[in-house]
């Protein structure tokens, strides 16, 4: 059983970003269930609040894609790190 079966997986992405698209494709190929949130499509106030929240969790200004699985996260489309985090 993979981590993603027991933990909520969330992908924070930009709708315009090529690496975010690749991350989506990779998660789909690996049958990971996840929620995708396009941060750039959110209204300004909600977006700013979310960016601040992500910044607090990752300890730096957010970069996209960022995938969270429970308390863990991976910034950028790094397949090895994603596999490890998701237990694939």
């Amino acid at each position, binding site marked *: 059983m993979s981590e993603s079966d027991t933990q909520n997986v969330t992908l924070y992405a*930009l*709708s*315009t*970003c*090529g*690496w*975010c*698209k690749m991350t989506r494709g990779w998660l789909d190929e690996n049958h990971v269930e996840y929620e995708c949130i396009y*941060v*750039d499509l959110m209204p*300004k106030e909600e*977006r700013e609040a979310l*960016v601040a929240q992500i910044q607090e969790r990752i300890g*730096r*200004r*957010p*970069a*996209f894609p960022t995938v969270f699985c429970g308390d863990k996260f991976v910034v*950028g*489309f*790094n397949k090895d790190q994603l596999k490890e985090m998701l237990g694939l």
Partner: protein
Amino acid sequence: MIDEKRVDELYRRLYEEAEASGYHLNPDVPFTKSLIEGLLINEDRYGYWACPCRIAEGNKEYDLDIICPCDYRDPDLDEYGACYCALYVTQEVLDGKRPVQPVPERRPDVPPQLAKKAMSVTVEEGSLPVWRCRVCGYLCARENPPSVCPVCKAKKDRFERFAFGRAV
């Protein structure tokens, strides 16, 4: 949704401009066109080409360093063979000698144009080295010379370190 014709037109323009100035677009055309579509979406949203792979504030002063081509393109090309969003790649990548891989973000949390100490950036001795193209005299201040002179297309090895009006 951006009109396909607009994407194709900008793709052609950027391709020609890149090739004429020593840069190269990513040869993965569908990927590159999706980034160009992102640039056009940001042009419609903000009025400028904010990097499609970075979150824009929508405030031009704040986003100035990430307007494509961003301030970080050349050092990322030097170090990783691609810029942050991978719209631009090096000749090495184009020749298949190096894969395109995700590039870590080098933009500081506070953009340089907003950092107080960077308000009046000058190229001084001890900061970035200045490089001179021995063929046409083009000068640029950056860590390393460009792979190709953007003016006369001379190769990197035709550049020399330059200081105080003489080669060093």
